[in-house]
């Protein structure tokens, strides 16, 4: 017997076929179910992937900003600091000549400025707070809307930044606001605090603990309250933003409150 006869034996074994337990409609229905399931799986997988990427990105930003005070973590973004700051500096309404002389010493050192403040979590810089030692905000509470509006009038570059709680050791009863700014030479926090007349600055002086290289200015309002303006370099920058504008802003705000 040859292969043909072996084949006959196989065919004989399945000569009688019982009725099928499925039909064309079952196949089409199951196909539709599997296709829908595949689509759902694809969507779920995509959503999971996006979530993982966002989580990893957020963790990276959190780690980066958490160690922002060290020089090596900020060294990478320094290169492009001066490239696109023309627009920011052009928004400044105050005469630049007024403050340039006072910043000569700061500008003598090479600028150390992160290239892109918002990517570094600009909104978290002020809230991350403790730069240096013991600068946890006290007394100022949330960003004061009135000060935000006044600061934006006097320093237009601040208008585009998110207002944050003042990142200084505020006396009780003070109002304040911090904005993260960048100009052609500096990057950091620009803070305005309005200290009530009866506050004891000898116990809680907002300017006592600030970053090295900070520029501070004070001015008295008509009722005796004190306007304190501080510009601090942050995230590895060595020059504060709009340092030349600190005193003019303090004087201007003192005239408004």
């Amino acid at each position, binding site marked *: 017997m040859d292969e043909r006869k*072996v*084949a006959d034996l*196989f065919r*004989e074994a*399945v000569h009688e076929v019982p009725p099928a*337990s499925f039909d064309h409609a079952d*196949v*089409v229905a199951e*196909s539709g179910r599997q296709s829908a399931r595949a689509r759902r799986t694809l969507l779920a997988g995509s959503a999971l992937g996006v979530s993982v990427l966002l989580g990893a990105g957020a963790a990276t930003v959190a780690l980066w900003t958490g160690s922002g005070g060290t020089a090596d973590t900020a060294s990478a973004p320094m290169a492009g600091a001066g490239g696109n700051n023309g627009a920011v500096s052009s928004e400044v309404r105050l005469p630049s000549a007024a403050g340039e002389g006072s910043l000569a010493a700061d500008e003598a050192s090479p600028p150390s400025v992160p290239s892109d403040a918002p990517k570094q979590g600009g909104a978290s810089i002020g809230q991350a707070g403790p730069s240096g030692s013991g600068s946890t905000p006290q007394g100022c509470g949330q960003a004061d809307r009135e000060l935000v509006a006044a600061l934006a009038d006097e320093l237009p570059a601040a208008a585009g930044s998110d207002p944050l709680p003042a990142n200084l050791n505020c006396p009780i009863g003070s109002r304040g606001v911090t904005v993260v700014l960048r100009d052609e030479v500096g990057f950091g926090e620009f803070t305005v605090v309005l200290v009530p007349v009866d506050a004891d600055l000898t116990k809680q002086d907002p300017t006592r603990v600030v970053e090295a290289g900070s520029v501070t200015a004070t001015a008295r309002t008509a009722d005796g309250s004190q306007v304190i303006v501080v510009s601090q370099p942050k995230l590895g920058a060595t020059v504060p933003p709009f340092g030349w504008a600190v005193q003019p802003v303090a004087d201007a705000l003192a005239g408004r409150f």
Partner: protein
Amino acid sequence: MDQRHEQEFAEYFTARKDAVRRTAYLLCGDWHRADDLAQTAFVSLHRHWRKIRDHGALDAYVRRSVVRAMIDETRRPWRRERFVPELPDRTGPATDGDSVGETVATRSALLDGLRRVPPRQRAVLVLRFLEGLDVAATADTLGCSEGTVKSQTSRGLDTLREVLGDAMDDLRSAS
């Protein structure tokens, strides 16, 4: 899938359903599982119908799907096949002149023999002797070399011969 494709698939399904079920039955030895395997293959074919450009290769696609489904199923722990030294009781030898009984006995013996053959060897035997594929087509369906098909055929027939005894003496010349 549009109406034209659905119609084409329905015609193919009607024409090939029983043939695919037969193949699946010899691969697994149980009509219920055979229907599961065949349905799996047809569902896969339906989902990919528009993407299959060569409709002359539909049979090959379905055969490959059935074989893969059978092999995948045998790997599942709750369906894993166990090889035993002693086969379960089967239909007794036919009496002289009882052709029906002889046929049933031979069929049962063949199925018992196939059950003792490992899944890939079994697939080789079914594709070659039920589907009538040559060595090259069998190798293409299973994704292996022609030499592998030849050796698996030889071993599979040896196993069947051991199980079937005199009833399968004729297989000796076919390997």
